[in-house]
């Protein structure tokens, strides 16, 4: 292909730099404002803090700590549960022929398409009747239920791509199904399993309406709802609010810092398959 002219390339970089500036700006602003008093926020709006208020972080952490632990527990457990359940289902769908297979997989597919808005009110009634209000399981169980649908769907296609001969040769070597699953399927599909788990964590971490409904208690609140409540107070100390937001951003940054490669790969290859 014809080499791009240097001028075109510079223009490209400048446009992208401007777009990136606006994309990153909220994060910059959050960081610098998290160290300012309300007064300094007014007098020195965009600059670095002149008199950084580090105690905002310790004060915010005292509140956010509980939310962070709750969110980590809920998102982590839900992701592990959804992946576990999906692996079992996907393996069976990919490997065996059995009566009602298409019907059962069809139910899975159907609920992938049925919008959650239909079930919001009855799910709330159900969770209340089960006595799960203000229990982390009120969030975890429905997250597993809806999260597993797409993972089962994607993993099935991945497991089906494994050459039949590999299963055959393992069987001749005397391996059972459990061993085939762990020594053949899991290593083969590990990147996609990991990226599905990450996507699941991202979704449940960001969910707002459901935890707002079923985990209203301060002690059980998730991060998203907890941060929202910061805004509700009468006298807002904006610095403290921004410090809480910064603290709430860190865990996913760390998690995805190590795993972004898998996540991006899995997202894009999964999308092409679907």
């Amino acid at each position, binding site marked *: 292909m014809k080499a791009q002219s240097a001028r075109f390339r510079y223009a490209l*970089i400048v446009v992208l730099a401007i777009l990136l500036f606006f994309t990153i700006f*909220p994060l910059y602003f959050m960081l610098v404002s998290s160290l300012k008093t309300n007064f300094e926020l007014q007098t020195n709006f965009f600059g670095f803090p002149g008199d950084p208020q580090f105690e905002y972080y310790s004060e915010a952490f005292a509140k956010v700590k509980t939310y962070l632990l709750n969110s980590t527990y809920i998102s982590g457990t839900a992701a592990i549960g959804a992946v576990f359940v999906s692996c079992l289902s996907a393996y069976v769908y990919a490997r065996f022929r059995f009566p009602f297979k298409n019907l059962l997989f069809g139910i899975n597919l159907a609920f992938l398409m049925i*919008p959650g808005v239909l079930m919001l009110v009855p799910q709330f009634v159900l969770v209340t009747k089960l006595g799960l209000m203000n229990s982390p399981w009120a969030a975890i169980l429905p997250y597993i239920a809806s999260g597993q649908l797409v993972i089962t769907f994607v993993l099935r296609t991945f497991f089906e791509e494994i050459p039949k001969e590999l299963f055959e040769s393992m069987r001749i070597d005397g391996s059972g199904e459990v061993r085939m699953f762990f020594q053949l399927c899991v290593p083969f599909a590990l990147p996609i399993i990991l990226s599905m788990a990450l996507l699941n964590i991202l979704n449940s971490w960001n969910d707002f309406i459901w935890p707002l409904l079923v985990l209203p208690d301060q002690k059980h609140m998730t991060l998203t709802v907890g941060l929202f409540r910061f805004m509700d107070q009468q006298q807002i100390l904006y610095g403290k609010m921004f410090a809480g937001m910064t603290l709430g951003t860190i865990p996913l940054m760390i998690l995805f810092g190590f795993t972004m490669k898998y996540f991006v790969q899995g997202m894009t290859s999964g999308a092409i398959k679907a």
Partner: protein
Amino acid sequence: MRLGLIRKNGLVYMCLLPGFFFIGLFLVYPAWEAFRMSFLDWNMRNYLHPEYVGFANYVQVLGDPVFRKSFAVLLVFVMWALVIFQGASIIGAYLIYLLGNGRIGAIAKAAFTVPMVVPGMVITLFWLFFYEPNYGMLNHILSSIGLESWTMVWLGQNQASAIGSILMKGFPWISGMGFLIYLAGFQAIDESVKEAAVMDGASRWKLFTKVDFPMILPQLRLTTILVLVGGIQQFSDQMIMTKGGPGYDTTVPGLFMYNNAFSYGQLGIGSAIGVILFLIIMLLTFLNMRFMREQS
């Protein structure tokens, strides 16, 4: 042999059991309940003794001017998401694709990917502060450049300012799943096809419209239906930023459902709204599938 088959199938069904336990209890049963509850007069006063009222909830909801108006509001938000959000991610992805696979391209891709993992609530709270009338950034900027008279309560002044403010949230709307999907689509383009077009002297615009853009149509179809289905159900931005106001000016159907069910305790009416939205979404999904089949 037959016994072996049954035993083997027994194991198969055991493996499917956990999945269907969750599907049954948390999806099938609530879906069924949604329809049943939509025919009940069920609120906080008669919580223990809901009463069957036939289609009364549907009649009441469909006749409610707030509910009708909420669809006009929804149309604005969904159209914006379909055109502007998708357009922005396509343009962003294409510009990075044009940078090539070198160091700068990789850095740009990473830089736009990072904000994806910032919790959505953090971004929303930033924008809430952006529009905040007393301390907020937008009014501050306006005052400091001498446009004091332009300052206003952005999220509450009138319908145009409230809707416009929510729509502008997240500018420049690049960082997201769509961006990654389109970028992967562009990067999968066979360069030899393009070389021929370049030899023929095709302009950059022509290259984009005739060669590159058609290559991401499959991705665009997928994201379009996802954006559409997601957009119809979405109401947390409106709930957080304007609570549906001023008046009902930013109330979308999802928020109307939430308020009926959880603020006014009208579980029957809430369910009926859920069923109506479900029917609309399924109709659109079905039409989209028909359309895609005809295309291919």
